């Protein structure tokens, strides 16, 4: 895993003291050996959405199998006072000592409101907002560099497209989403530099009707490989397959929904992060406040290739994956002439290359040259 690379030493002292406090706090469960370690997982949508929530539910389901562990779950919890109630309920009624509130919007103000009042409870938020010195020590965030898998999606799409037009159905023009769109296009252009990617923003995380409309309209324009960044990719996958187009998945595997159209996909592998955090909580070591990782750290993975994916595509993608795993591949690089956005401005200067951990990438506010669409 990849602890935040800045301010590490400065926080060492405080981490040690928290560690001591944590150990003391963890003495109780050892005394009452029969009491299971309870943690809660909170989802913003249904657990079986073939997407964001399912990816988390899969990790939770795996962890349920561990001995001495009890999992309490709640789905469809909105980002309102309701999630605060769910969290306090899990703490007060179910005895949870570690919570995984998985939706981005749960962090501010909800987790931040509860954490100081529940100092003995650890909160692990998925999204990557925890900041040293600004947020409580019993709060942490974890996230993955899934743009690596979107780049690989792009490589496969680049080999498979015949029209040289690929499409991206996205929720909102926020940094995480823009980074995925750009990675997808850059992956495809690494194969064929003439490829363009049309991006449509639906406006919100779960808009099934608009997602279907966007997919259909892109298909009408000749797009033949799709991917997406919405909470539940089911609609885009099924619509694209119905139109006879190919599709790369996102969040979890949607291969089951369209076995004849599903090329590969960018999947979360939350088990790695969950395990790290739970192990720390059970051992009483400091709460991992900032966890990040990509393919190399096992935070993300690609879906198995569909049978129609050509050998050339597989080989090319596997090569790049190998470089990513070895830690010597950067997606966002200036190259010879600099990386341009789709308005012609240079966004990464020539010769510069940004590591995945670079904070600059988390503020992405542009679409690269070759993406048709506007922020």
């Amino acid at each position: 895993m990849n602890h935040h690379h800045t301010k590490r030493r400065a926080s060492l002292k405080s981490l040690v003291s928290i560690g001591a406090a944590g150990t003391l706090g963890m003495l109780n469960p050892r005394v009452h050996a029969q009491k299971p370690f309870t943690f809660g997982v909170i989802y913003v949508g249904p657990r079986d959405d073939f997407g964001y929530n399912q990816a988390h539910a899969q990790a939770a389901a795996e962890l349920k199998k561990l001995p001495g562990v009890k999992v309490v779950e709640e789905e469809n919890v909105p980002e309102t006072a309701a999630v605060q109630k769910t969290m306090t309920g899990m703490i007060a009624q179910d005895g949870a000592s570690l919570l995984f509130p998985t939706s981005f919007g749960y962090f501010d103000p909800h987790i931040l409101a509860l954490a100081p009042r529940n100092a003995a409870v650890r909160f692990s938020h998925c999204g990557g907002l925890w900041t040293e010195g600004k947020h409580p020590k019993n709060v942490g965030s974890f996230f993955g560099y899934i743009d690596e898998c979107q780049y690989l999606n792009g490589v496969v799409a680049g080999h498979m497209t015949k029209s040289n037009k690929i499409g991206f159905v996205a929720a909102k023009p926020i940094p995480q989403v823009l980074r995925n769109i750009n990675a997808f296009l850059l992956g495809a252009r690494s194969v064929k530099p003439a490829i363009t990617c049309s991006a449509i923003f639906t406006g919100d995380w779960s808009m099934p009707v608009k997602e279907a409309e966007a997919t259909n309209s892109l298909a009408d324009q000749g797009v033949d490989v799709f991917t997406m960044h919405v909470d539940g990719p089911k609609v885009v996958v099924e619509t694209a397959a119905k139109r006879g187009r190919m599709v790369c998945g996102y969040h979890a595997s949607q291969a089951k929904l369209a076995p004849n159209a599903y090329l590969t996909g960018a999947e979360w592998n939350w088990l790695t992060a969950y395990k790290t955090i739970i192990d720390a909580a059970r051992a009483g070591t400091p709460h991992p406040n900032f966890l990040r990782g990509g393919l190399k750290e096992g935070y993300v993975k690609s879906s198995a290739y569909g049978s129609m994916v050509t050998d050339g595509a597989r080989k090319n993608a596997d090569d790049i994956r190998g470089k990513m795993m070895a830690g010597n591949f950067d997606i966002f690089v200036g190259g010879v002439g600099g990386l341009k956005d789709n308005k012609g401005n240079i966004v990464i200067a020539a010769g510069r290359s940004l590591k995945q951990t670079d904070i600059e990438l988390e503020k992405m506010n542009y679409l690269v040259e070759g993406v048709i669409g506007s922020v």
Partner: protein
Amino acid sequence: MAPAMRQAFVDVGLPVLAVFASLLLFGIVVSFGGVNPLELWLLLFRGAFGDWFSWQNTLQRAAPLMLTALCVALPARAGLVVIGGEGALVLGGLACAALPLALPLPGGVVGLALVCGVGAMAGGLWIALVGALREYRGINETISSLLLAYVAIGLFKHWVEGPLRDPTSLNKPSTPALAESLRIGGIAGSDVHWGLVFGVVACLLFSVALRSTVWGFSTRVVGGNTKAAQLVGLAASRLVLLACALGGACAGLAGAIEVAAVHTSANASLIVGYGYAGILVSFIARHNPVAVIPVAILLGGFGAAGSLLQRRLGLPDASVLLLQGIAFVLILASEALRDADWRAIWRRILQPSGPRPSSTPLGDRTV
């Protein structure tokens, strides 16, 4: 039984019986899924009303629903079916978050009154627009209010993700947070915020006003029969507009309170369907503002109990929607029993083979 007492007994007894019947049915349904119904009922009660924590949970969920239900109930008393409270709510929240950006506000009660006031005003104007479209252009208010809610949400997103966006809110576009002094805290150290008090007071106030003021009487006459109201010289259009504005103001206030008490800024988390849940509450309460209070608490209780059901029994979220559905269908169906002649029914049950009593007394009492 005295008629008034009998009336009160029917008013309270029927919905309570309907809720119990729905719990019974729900228990039977889940028992097919291998869940012990006794355990289920116990958990439902514990989750919604079992202890102080559950009560806070229930009341917190009920608070915004009372105000959004009034956005349906008040226009309904003037004869309009307005279902676009969601639009008024989000605009109210937006106005509340935007006011401190437009002009410097004093902290404390004055500033709070201003941000809440401007939220109520925004909501009021929005639903008044619905009333005006109907009164002056003849546009069906049900359709227009629903469509305008989509427009309002579009406007909300445009402003939150565009001109009013806090540049530091990277992946969750929001307006800048309200100053600490402009936020609403909990009641007496509890988690329940003052929005609940606003809701209860508004419900009681409008109930008294509708029952015993000239305005309330006139509004009800307009709602009963607009032509007759105009014939006796009531300014029907103005009364309709006022009812819409007041209803919208309640929903707008709900949005402002959500921002000031929960979210601290306007963002997409505000759009969770409180406005639409208010429609359900108001119809179950038969557009009676006093009845809105217990119905909203019941709905809040379902939410709170559903949370515990999921965590303890691993039931899907949809199960509590099922219970809610059964309960509301039965409550509405029980309305049909309202005017039943129980004595005649008993007589028929007790003497199934005997000569039937003359049907005339039955006939003039049933509706």
